[in-house]
């Protein structure tokens, strides 16, 4: 399956990644190769096989519903570029 450069542009936009026009062609070719491999896998008969949710054949362990995390806001906010009144500040977003 071939991926064209407009699909690359859309994916880049969704993933917030900058891909220049020069890089776009090569990215399309490489991703097309990956999808070719997927096409080969599609040929396998998977009738009656439960789709794999995780490569490890294991089951999620659950923890008891207890509060175990203390407040470490000051430590965490020392990493943030900007914080005020306990809030993390980010460039303005309006819906």
């Amino acid at each position, binding site marked *: 399956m071939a991926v064209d450069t407009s699909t690359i542009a*859309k994916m880049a936009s*969704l*993933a*917030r990644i900058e891909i220049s026009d020069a890089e776009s062609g090569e990215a399309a070719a490489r991703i097309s190769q990956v999808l070719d491999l997927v096409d080969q896998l599609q040929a396998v008969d998977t009738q009656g096989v*439960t*789709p794999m*949710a*995780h*490569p*490890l054949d*294991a*089951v*999620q*362990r*659950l*923890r*008891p*519903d*207890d*509060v*175990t*995390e203390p*407040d*470490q*806001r000051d430590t*965490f*906010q020392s990493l943030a570029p*900007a914080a*005020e*009144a*306990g*809030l*993390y*500040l*980010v*460039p*303005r*977003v*309006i*819906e």
Partner: protein
Amino acid sequence: MEWETVIGLEVHVQLATKSKIFSGASTAFGADPNTQACAVDLALPGTLPVANEGAFRYAVMFGLAVNAEIGKRSVFERKNYFYPDLPKGYQTTQLAEPIVGPGHVDLELDGGRTKRVRIHHAHLEEDAGKSLHEDFHGMTGIDLNRAGTPLIEVVTEPDMRNAEEAVAFAKKLHNIVTSLEICDGEMSQGSMRFDVNVSVRPKGEEKLGTRTETKNLNSFRFMEEAIELEVERQISVLESGGTIVQETRLYNGDTKKARSMRTKEDSNDYRYFPCPDLLPIMLDDDYIESVRQQMPELPEERRQRFINDLGLSDYDATQLTSDRATADFFEASAKASGEPKLAANWIMADLAAYLNKQELSIDQSPVSPEQLAGLIARIKDNTISSKIAKTVFEAMCAGEGDADAVIDARGLKQVSDTGALEKIVDEVIANNQAQVDNYRNADEAKRPKMLGFFVGQVMKASKGQANPQAVNEILLKKLSD
């Protein structure tokens, strides 16, 4: 043309676990910003989710309460989008294998009509943080306390046909989750949020019309208003030859207006995929059975108990179990007074009228269940008449204290003392000689009606405090002398 409305709902229910779904941070409401946002919630590099058993237990309880199949294997997926209140860049949610499968809820509507609404599925997911757009030097403030709070998103089939049915479903869901104690039900704090999918079609048409989704309604009233407004809009667009655009809309409860938020064309492509940080959740029959054993009483079970054990009518029991807080209030009051029927009457009539007028919820009632029981006890032991009880109740609502305190302070104690009553009756007879003569000359058959005049006079003279039964007896005796 006659139009038919089709409504489906998506309901976000915040689960009342102590800690978050994937971290040990607290979920308590109202804490200082970011004091309950730990490294996992902030998506700091190297952190991994640790799933909370409580969230699964509550989701299973919900599934059992709506007669649903429980997903014994459920899988978390990543829903990818970028927003500052979602630090990981994806929401951990379920898609292909949710924890709660198809189920249903039966509604009791006005006029004794019932209606079944099918649940498509309900899935577990995490809530996002909050963005505060007030001015922080042109920046947006982010509070991540809510990030990671467990939610179930309940998705219905498009089974509702008008706003009344949608609101009845929403109220029933609220009743179920609060009765199960899996959600605090505080809608003003965002504990339950409704997204409403609405479309219209010509009556008799099978094919569904194009729908719009109105998001994040947080009260039953706004939900009803938003649906009615949207139905009206869609019909007017169609009748003037236009077409409905599939879009997300926002309703403003203050201005009573809705606006388009985004159309389908530029909607997000969320690129779901199974979350590699979480293994499949496997729940076995023993686990599900143990959850069933721990389930608190459901509204329907409580309704049956009120009928069978407390002797309420079907109607009263249905009314009193339509929400959790009312049922709790009634039960406490019935227990304290030992008079379920009287307690039911007072709650559904006088208390409901007062709360309605003051726009209070029953949680905010100025009269406690025990205080109401105190009032009922004074009616029962003939200290006051039912009529005087209404005055006492009003005074209790106004904060004048318990029934006994009000009765004492206002001197409302019913007079049953024969000597005192005879004195009043003698005065009334002396002051109304003409009526007395009429009475004595009247037919035996007409007398009972005429007696009412004298009872009224005695009650008036006693300021309503005379025991009506005793007054009747004394009057009959004296008038026939």
